């Protein structure tokens, strides 16, 4: 408990889309080796906040610190170089490519270069992928299978594996279980636990409070672009659900009148 080191710190993040105030000054801290749940009603600003952190949106205002250093995230690529990986709500896999190709998409291993052409090292990528999937206990028939042919759960697992594969500091998952069956969801949640056990720091967005309850250490509730609750995940599921729902629908607000509106 003593040395809870923040990996990510976001301060007073604001983001407008035309007239819509998607984020009205949100603070967020993620500690090392922690799973942080992020919940809230539709349009609360969850995805927007995470897209800011992953470099997809540039915030209108606010600061971001990665392991204590102030950063200006210019693009998803930039965020990625800093170790921030996002698993998108709408799966970001190329269906026409195989598992190994998807895991290494954009960071292919090469054998050598001929002029401007880099030659793929397919064997190394397949081996690495096999090792990665084994380590995360992900069950896939073959790393040469086109992801198009895999189930939703398997595809989600690959998207997550891919996000955590390369010296990742923070993995952001936007509704990783939204499109999955109960059984497939359970596997993804197992994967989240496995990742935590292996030392990863994770932010997970979900509308399923049981999911958040099962895997998260801490929870942040957003409502209409503001943080209304930040608390550890403790107690029984029913009590937890009741409390969190109160925040989600706006019956409770820990940060009301905090002056987020004006400045």
């Amino acid at each position: 408990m003593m040395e809870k080191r923040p990996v990510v710190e976001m301060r007073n993040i604001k983001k407008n889309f035309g007239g819509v105030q998607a984020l009205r000054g949100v603070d967020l801290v993620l500690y090392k080796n922690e799973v942080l749940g992020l919940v809230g009603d539709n349009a609360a600003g969850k995805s927007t906040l995470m897209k800011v952190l992953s470099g997809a949106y540039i915030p209108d205002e606010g600061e971001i610190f990665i392991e204590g250093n102030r950063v200006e995230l210019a693009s998803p690529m930039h965020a990625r170089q800093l170790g921030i990986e996002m698993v998108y709500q709408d799966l970001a896999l190329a269906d026409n490519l195989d598992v190994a190709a998807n895991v290494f998409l954009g960071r292919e291993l090469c054998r050598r270069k001929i002029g401007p052409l880099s030659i793929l090292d397919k064997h190394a990528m397949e081996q690495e992928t096999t090792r990665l999937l084994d380590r995360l206990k992900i069950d896939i028939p073959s790393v040469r299978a086109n992801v198009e042919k895999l189930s939703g759960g398997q595809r989600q697992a690959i998207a997550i594996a891919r996000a955590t594969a390369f010296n990742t500091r923070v993995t952001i998952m936007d509704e990783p279980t939204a499109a999955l069956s109960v059984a497939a969801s359970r596997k993804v949640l197992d994967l989240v636990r496995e990742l935590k056990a292996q030392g990863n720091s994770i932010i997970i967005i979900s509308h399923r409070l049981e999911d958040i309850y099962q895997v998260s250490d801490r929870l942040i509730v957003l409502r209409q672009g503001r943080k209304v609750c930040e608390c550890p995940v403790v107690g029984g599921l029913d009590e937890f659900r009741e409390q969190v729902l109160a925040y989600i629908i706006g019956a409770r607000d820990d940060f009301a009148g905090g002056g987020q509106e004006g400045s």
Partner: protein
Amino acid sequence: MLQQNIRDFGMYIALLVIVIVFAVATKGVFISPRNISNLINQTGYIAVLAVGMTLVIIIRHIDLSVGFLAGFLGAMAAIALVFWKLPVFVVIPLILGFGILAGLLNGFLVAQMRIPAFVATLAGWLGYRGALQLATVKTGTIIIPNEAFNAIGNGFIPDIPLPGILPGVHKATLLIGFIILAAYVSGAIRDRQKTRAYDFKVPPLNIFVTRLVCTAAVIFLLTWILAGYRGLSWTAVVILIIFLLYHFITTQTVLGRHIYAVGGNPEAAQLSGISVKKITYVVFASMGMLSALSGMLFASRLRSATTQAGTLFELDAIAAAFVGGVSASGGVGKVSGSIIGALVMASLTNGMNLLGVDISYQYIVRAAVLASAVIFDVATRNRTV
């Protein structure tokens, strides 16, 4: 499994049917060594376009400008040779360079200005048609007297002078044919062994052997027929080089992987740090270069640049790509397939010409083949999903 095979083998079956039908209808003329040699030369200018078009369609675009661009650049080559009196070895890279520029222009319109490729390249279709007519307006057809240039479309590779050994057989062609055969067979076997060594599933042995034997037989037969006639044409050499180059790029390089990724899921590719814009530029530039090559092959073949050069090449190239298994929804397609597709389209034209089919019916038949290829694609795709 069966579906995969139907998609893969569809074009071979189509080609086989076409060859048999025309062989019977023309009483064997279609498969005479002379006509086969001819057919390969006719395939050349469609095949190189089809290869470029494959990449364009893989990244979910289309290029309608390639036909008249090829015609226009063929005329430019003729002008450079005849009026500017430039030597061949300058003209060829110069025209290829023009092609790349034209391709980059399309790339700019599509990637930068975000104009739908269909519209941007339709403007090119019209523009290059005008440019072609302007280029040939004073003289009409430009006759190209340059033998070296004309050899690309009409000439054959020189033979190895070995008096007494195999008279009447083109030994250089035979040698090249056997090298290709050996490389293909050993490559296929090595690939299978490697795949097995890494514990991946391989197709059943009988399917593997059947495919190997069939392909080897085709290579052997083609080599034998060509060696017995006048040997490998320079056009065939060009097709071979383009095939090897593009096959290598699409299957073995990071660039190729990124092209497929952009076709499969542009958003995912972008989020993975792949520049969709850059890939679009590269693919259109390559298309432009291949259009230039196609235009020169055609001009060289006719020994002249005509006002009509390039007409409907784009249709044949697009049809060749679809016949060759490229998917209209993007992300799927092989260079080898498109070359077979080009052979199908060239065979149709060649066979119908031999039979003296009226040109209006020829258009309808080619359109029907294009339509059926796309229908086939959609039908076999839908069932997989």
